[in-house]
């Protein structure tokens, strides 16, 4: 996993609550057996005017000029502002993969769906929870200021605005260390292999029917 350091980047607003994983990456693209290449189909049904299927050349498709991420001012965006319950729905990791592949490094919302939230950390995409009132303010700022950029300082757990306003966010210490150091979860867990073996052996003795 790539290390997460401080970034300063362009911000785009997705002003809608309960954005679900079917909207983030529609099901037809889940047929891929690869982990990459999903960015071109991020928000496919909103982003294009025609219907997308796997294998289509997205540069030949009709884009929806009104969709926020298609506006010229948001090209090169890396930080997404979103509303409550972002990422609700399925467990598809294709949703964070597509956001990351598109170029996003950070999603800021007042709340996230649990599985989506968890999946983001696994790939080094940082989901940040800030109060709804702060989000309201940031939505206003980004809409009224072309080229609006935020700084995300993970080490100090701060989102910093161009006016030097600082918004502190919470993050689990373990997850923070994994992101800062680009650590692989599986490698870390396998350091406890002996303990897992012992646990398993005990369980096998107590509930042998679980091991048949």
């Amino acid at each position, binding site marked *: 996993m790539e290390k997460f350091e401080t970034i300063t980047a362009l911000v785009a607003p997705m*002003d*809608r*609550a*309960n954005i*679900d994983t*079917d*909207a983030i990456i*529609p*099901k*037809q693209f*889940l*047929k*891929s*057996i*690869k*982990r990459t290449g999903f960015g071109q189909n991020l928000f496919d*049904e909103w982003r294009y005017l025609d*219907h997308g299927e*796997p*294998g289509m050349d997205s540069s030949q498709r009709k884009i929806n000029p009104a969709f926020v991420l298609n506006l010229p001012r948001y090209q090169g965006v890396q930080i997404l502002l979103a*509303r*409550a*319950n972002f990422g*609700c*729905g*399925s*467990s*598809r*990791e*294709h949703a*964070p993969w597509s956001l990351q592949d598109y170029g996003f490094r950070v999603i800021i919302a007042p*709340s*996230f*769906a*649990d*599985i989506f939230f*968890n*999946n983001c950390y*696994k*790939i080094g995409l940082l989901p940040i929870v800030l109060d709804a009132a702060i989000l309201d303010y940031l939505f206003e700022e980004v809409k009224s200021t072309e080229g609006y950029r935020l700084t995300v300082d993970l080490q100090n757990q701060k989102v910093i605005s161009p006016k030097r306003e600082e918004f502190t966010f919470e993050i*689990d210490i*373990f*997850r923070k260390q994994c992101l800062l150091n680009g650590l692989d*979860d*599986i490698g*870390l*867990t*396998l350091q*406890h292999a002996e*303990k*897992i073996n012992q*646990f*398993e052996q005990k*369980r096998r003795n107590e*509930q*042998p*029917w*679980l*091991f*048949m």
Partner: protein
Amino acid sequence: MQTLYDKLWNQHLVHTESDDPGSMALIYIDRHLVHEVTSPQAFESLKLAGRKPWRLNSILAVADHNVPTTDRSQGIQDPISRLQVDTLDQNCDELGITEFKMNDLRQGIVHVIGPEQGATLPGMTVVCGDSHTSTHGAFGCLAFGIGTSEVEHVLATQCLLMKKSKTMRISVEGNLGLGITAKDIALAIIGEIGTAGGTGYAIEFTGSAIRALSMEGRMTLCNMAIEAGARAGMVAVDDTTIDYIKGRPFAPKNELWGSAIAFWRTLRSDADAVFDRTVTLDATQIKPQVTWGTSPEMVTTIDGIVPDPARVSDEVKRHDMQQALNYMGLSANTPIQQINLDKIFIGSCTNSRIEDLRAAAQIVKGKHIAANIKLALVVPGSGLVKKQAEQEGLDQIFRSAGFEWREPGCSMCLAMNDDRLIAGERCASTSNRNFEGRQGPGGRTHLVSPAMAAAAAIAGHFVDVRKLSNE
């Protein structure tokens, strides 16, 4: 004084960095269900890292999302779908993982076959790369959906790194009215607490109405816990649970059966257990539910009307409602019973079990689908459900009524195979999500119970199933 969730958590706790309840813990996984959509990248990474699955007999695999529900003798026509299913077959064959292949009678939707085979047992942790894994909590399990990185993590380590959830008790007391099902309870709960109401919680469903539900009903309810935002939903073990499991292929037998049930009976919250949040519903007040929007919380009752965004003061919410009405092609204040339908879907991991098919068949018996219904599908949850239904003659009832009787799979719940809505088509569906495009781009989904879907098929529009039951 522990909740059922506390007990399950503690029984699977391998390691924790500190005693702080908010710290990351290593949780042991007993059962890992695998399907074709969320596993190929996990198997690939596992292989690239030179790792092998930790415990093969914890894994049960099946292809369900991409499989055709029509004639399977020619295999899968769509080359991309076929590659994904072939990839699962290859991975399972190479590694020695038990898999029910497409033409196996035991094949079906992963959340139907786990319990059907007795592969889901009380006290287990059950995971799958699928959010509706919450279904298995009906058996007094800790069951939840995971992403592909976590699928790989479980394959490699038999564990997951996670934080303990908060606990919510949803108590439903009293007797359900005639024609009211677990699906109506689930939608009524989501209407009450919202699709994010359960975020961060594990839900335990309790109360006399829950105890009175069959295992099929409990699975429907736990299945929809994720639509309330909760990764896990669960029901305590009782005689209904134990009777369901007895004699199933993967269930303990002979002398182990006695010790297993003695342990399983401890899988309930202690009388004085404290929950972080408690919600109470009166079962006698629950009416047949119908969703009108593009989120399961956008739900009302069969005697209700499409709500008016103008009456909502919150700006974001009003905007979302208006967008939902635009997408759904509905006007505010339209009576639900005046909504006409194009297609009917009876199936999915929510409602494709034998009890669901019986309830729908009872409604359509001796009748015929309305002229405006272009397609009415029944997709059994597994090959074994299909066989059972055929033994009971349900397939004939459905066929005579104008329904198509299909092969098992996820089908039009998410339309990854050829079963889908065309833009603008309106469907009464027994599935779990009414998101935009879920059943096909531009398709409009109304979530209902199997009996309500069946009744809508006959009438051509939504009708109150309670009135039919009285006839």
